[in-house]
């Protein structure tokens, strides 16, 4: 009896994150109106492309949330980095320099978050809530409160649905997302830094006791999150081909939701890159399928809300009563 229960729990444990994704895919594959189009390669391709920006933000957010933090400034940071990238290209810098500038802007915002959190000893919620406003304001200020039109370069090709050399199959941005997910999954699982992230989130006092430099590690975590938001900002610019300071409002909540659906615990110490990526795809498939069905926006919002609650409830089942 107990053995059987344990095995069931182990199975749920393993499949947990996948179950949701599989259910969503099965659901739309069965619905008569969309089943022909839903699983077509071209549709899968566009789902993948639509996932890139949230995914990049969520990769960094996974580290943040596992360390028992939160980064509310992620979406503003994406907007600011996109604007900077556009700004740099219009100002005549090379596309590569512009991309670098965008990424570094994101990193700088993240670094500032990390330094403020550790030096002022305020909770991440407050610091990044402040930064949410600051970064958004900066973006609007720099862009003169309007969109920045930038000349077409290779940067604007990063997110096209059918990439130029056809053998690429997926947009360069999608490949970059996959590459980073694999890399960061490895970093989280099998590096000293990754273990320290878990230790800090699980019990910061213990981490300190064991000689983990908690301040330095946190600064690193938020900088990493910022850099990834910077890259997401570049992708946002690439998708829109303009630098728009008002883009991605509220996207930080999608990003956080993806991590949480993927098993990340806001109490820290739990989460994985695989889970987060699944969370990202669950939301992307839902959006895509609902749009195909012609369901209005509000229905999508309700469904995603329900999914978040269900996912965390499932988490409770997996890890016992805490959470």
């Amino acid at each position: 009896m107990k053995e059987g229960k344990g095995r069931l729990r182990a199975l749920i444990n393993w499949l947990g994150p996948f179950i949701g994704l599989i259910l969503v895919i099965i659901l739309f594959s069965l619905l008569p109106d969309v089943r022909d189009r839903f699983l077509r390669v071209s549709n899968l391709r566009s789902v993948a492309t639509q996932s890139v920006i949230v995914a990049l933000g969520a990769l960094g957010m996974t580290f943040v949330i596992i360390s028992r933090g939160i980064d509310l400034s992620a979406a503003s940071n994406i907007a600011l980095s996109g604007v900077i990238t556009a700004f740099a290209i219009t100002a005549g810098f090379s596309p590569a320099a512009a991309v670098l500038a965008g990424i570094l802007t994101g990193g700088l915002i993240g670094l500032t978050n990390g330094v403020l959190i550790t030096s002022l000893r305020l909770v991440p919620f407050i610091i990044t809530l402040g930064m949410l406003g600051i970064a958004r304001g900066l973006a609007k200020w720099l862009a003169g409160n309007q969109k920045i039109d930038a000349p077409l370069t290779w940067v604007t090709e990063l997110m096209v649905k059918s990439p130029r050399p056809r053998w690429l199959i997926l947009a360069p941005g999608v490949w970059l997302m996959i590459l980073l997910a694999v890399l960061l999954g490895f970093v989280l699982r099998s590096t000293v830094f990754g273990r320290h992230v878990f230790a800090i989130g699980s019990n910061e006092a213990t981490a300190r006791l064991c000689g983990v430099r908690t301040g330095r590690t946190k600064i690193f975590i938020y900088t990493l999150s910022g850099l990834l938001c910077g890259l997401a900002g570049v992708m946002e610019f690439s998708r829109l081909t303009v630098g728009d300071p008002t883009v991605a409002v509220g996207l930080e909540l999608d990003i956080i939701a993806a991590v949480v659906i993927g098993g990340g615990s806001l109490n820290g110490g739990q989460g994985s890159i695989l889970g987060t990526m699944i969370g990202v795809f669950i939301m992307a498939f839902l959006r895509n399928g609902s749009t195909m069905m012609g369901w209005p926006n509000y229905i999508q919002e309700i469904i995603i809300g329900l999914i978040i609650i269900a996912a965390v409830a499932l988490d409770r089942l997996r890890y016992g009563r805490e959470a």
Partner: protein
Amino acid sequence: MTDRGGGSPPFSAPRLVMRGISKNFGATAALRRVDLEVQGGTVHALLGENGAGKSTLMKILSGALRPDGGQMFLDGVSYAPANPLDGRRRGIAMIYQELNLAPHLSVEENLMLGREKQTLGFLRRGEMRRRVGEALELVHHPEIEANVPVGELSIGARQVVEIARALMERARILVMDEPTSSLSQEDMDRLFQTIRRLAAEGVGLVYISHFLEEVQRVADSVTVLRDGQRIFFGRMEQVTLNDLIRLMVGQEVKQLFPKVDHTLGQPVLSLTSLKGRRMSRPVSFELRRGEILGLAGLVGAGRTETLRALFGLDTVQAGRWEVFGRIAGRGGPARRIRQGLGFLSEDRQVEGLAMDQSLADNLTLSHFRPYSRMGVLNLRRQRRAAEEWTVRMNIKVRSVLHPVASLSGGNQQKIALARLLHQQADILFLDEPTRGIDVVSKSQVYEWIGRLAREGKSVIFASSYFPELLGVCDTIAAFHRGRVVDVRPAADWNNADLMAAATLGQA
């Protein structure tokens, strides 16, 4: 002194009678047919060493635990509380060391919390204010006014607020557990006045404290517990302080402390008038290679605070100290670990272990170096090393990848200890290393401490359970209210001396 254990009470018609109370936790008997009688209008001291059964008995009284046997009567009426709330309603009030007040609310709001007077949902402020006024008048404390937020009061005043709250509940029996351990002399005197006034109102008070002098000052009668049994009950005038100490400690019980031969070498750690942020006074002592130094003292006596300052968990404000002949300098735990220090926290749950992380990670967290190259971990090597350690430390687990929370207290403590051994610390600070673990695990811990000393490591062993210090240590320093009372070779101490030093500050 007359030992009347089990005999008739020295007063008549007690407010509270607990008769033949027994309680078992698994195979261990925490209480064996214990009697307790408390008169209204008197202060009754409940004494005993750590683990003697005081808190179990009080938990049964409050309704937090159900007894396995025995009966209780309140004012002659049978009393069997279903839970602490039930106990409170029947007139049992408990005041613990950790206070239970809402710091942002005012004194009045705290006192009325949960029993706000209302008519159709509107608060009846006038009546509330009157009742609060009555209660505050009774406990009279100059700092306390009805509309001051509790968070702005001193610890002593907060304690008085708790007492006032107990009065609002019309407490018949008021239990105070170590009420003075964090009080100033002035607050203590005021508290005793309050206690006297309460007794005059007819409340029966149960007073638990390790500070025997104040117990003698405040209590009318006394019950002494040892190993879960009542061994003395009588009036306070019948006994001297030394009698009480002897009753609490009992005959020198020869416990099994595995003696491991080891020799002492050069000093490895020396402090001169060192004062940490949370230490009330500077402290000086020396630790030699291969030495086991005991820090004896009650909770809050300064043992833990000293170790935390040394390990970089609290800032050092004054004094100098050397590790292996070098000035230790400033730094946090990371630097201390590099200097060869290791620290075992007294609180496994809150600080010692990351409970939801795996056993392997907890064990190796302070020393990943053997398994990492350029920051990348070899997870297989880490897991294998963790498995070896569990075998060496005699920890039975199914997998080292399971979370630490799934282990028993004793095994958790072994993991925390194994971490220090794994990080190859040369000087180990062990703060209450045997707290809350079973006897078999305890004696294993003692043996490891001895073996470490034989390997030339040095250990500081802080404990409030003195027999273990006497059984294991080479040298013992006794702490009393932040001060080192005396440092002597363990052979020159006995349990009664240590108790006298720790409870009275007498060298």
